[in-house]
């Protein structure tokens, strides 16, 4: 998992070619913390040259997250050529639902 910040998000996600999975989390977001090990396991399983896995701490990049239309955590999003094409948001972001979403793109 590549840890992003507000200076690297643009290059690694928005300007990337191919598909990028982003785990948006935040400080004090306990459900993000609970989901994260599952996302790491999914990154091991599905990560490849064509499906890159990243994480962004939105607490340090609030405006960036709002710019991506995110106002609730956790969000696991799939980007393709810089555009968000799919996401699992908040309670819908269960490990099973995230895996089902990822299977569509690998």
């Amino acid at each position, binding site marked *: 998992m590549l840890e992003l910040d507000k200076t690297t998000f643009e290059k690694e996600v928005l300007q990337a070619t191919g598909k990028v999975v982003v785990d948006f989390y935040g400080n*004090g*977001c*306990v*459900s993000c913390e609970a989901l994260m090990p599952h996302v790491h396991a999914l990154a091991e399983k599905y990560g490849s040259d064509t499906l890159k896995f990243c994480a962004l701490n939105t607490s340090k990049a609030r405006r960036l997250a709002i710019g991506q*239309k*995110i106002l*609730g955590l956790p969000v696991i999003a799939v980007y393709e050529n810089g555009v968000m094409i799919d996401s699992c948001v*908040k*309670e819908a972001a269960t490990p099973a639902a995230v895996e089902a979403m990822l299977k569509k793109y690998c």
Partner: protein
Amino acid sequence: MEKIYDVIILGAGPAGLSAGLYAGRSRLSTLIIEKGVDGGQIAITNEIENYPGQVLEGETGPSLIARMTEQAKKFGAERISDTINSVELDGEIKKVVCSNGTYQGKTVIIATGAKHRNIGCENEEKFIGKGISFCATCDASFFEDFEVYVVGGGDAAVEEAMYLTKFARKVTVIHRRNELRAAKSIQEKAFKNPKMAFMWDSVVVKVDGDELLNKMYVKNVKTGEITTVEADPDDGLFGLFGFIGLLPNTELFEGKIDLDKGYVKTDDNLHTNVPGVFAAGDLRIKVLRQVVTAAADGAIAATEAEHYLAHKK
């Protein structure tokens, strides 16, 4: 079909994990099915101060639950991630039909818990995570220096509203009555807080926005008058948090076991009206819904399941 478990536990919150620990320790073959992450509601709870023994520095809901999961596993309870689609509870062998397979058990302990109640306005689903939230600790920081509205009037609503004032520049509580239900001590603090405002006798009927929430319609329940609330143009968005109580996760069991307003009816020993089917935790009719009472329920349900199996032999 394959294995028949002694006990199948539906849900891995405190009730389910406690049942798993007791059942496993009694050498019953035990399966715990959970669709999400372990812990249920406490998986999104940062502070738990009232679970006996919970005095560790830096302990959170997930860290407490991680130990409960480990303990259940230690005594042999299997735990799988799957979504339950339907259940067949009648007869000697119960069936639990999930997305990835069907599981069979001689007894079932229902511990699927409860979830927050939705606000109940038009367009709500569209704006969850886009301005609507039910988790202040998850999402409060997005609203730093924005305006936030909180629906509800009980202890949780008012306490969460005050927590949100640490981030938002103004927090307005929208309540359907003309006085709060929260404890007086909490109310006093709320009325003194300069960032707090109140809309009485009001309910949110519709939310709207351009991807992010920036408009809502609030109805006065006494006059029927509709007020339009719009985001400050400089902000372009506002937050709406709902804290109006719980709903039991019991849709799957409607018509299969006795429910009252969605909550499961049990006797003192947690038997439902169906032989071999037990219920534990927040989905039960009970006076106190806490981690400690859920864990107690799990222990009783597993022990009763063991007695039920012993009598069958």
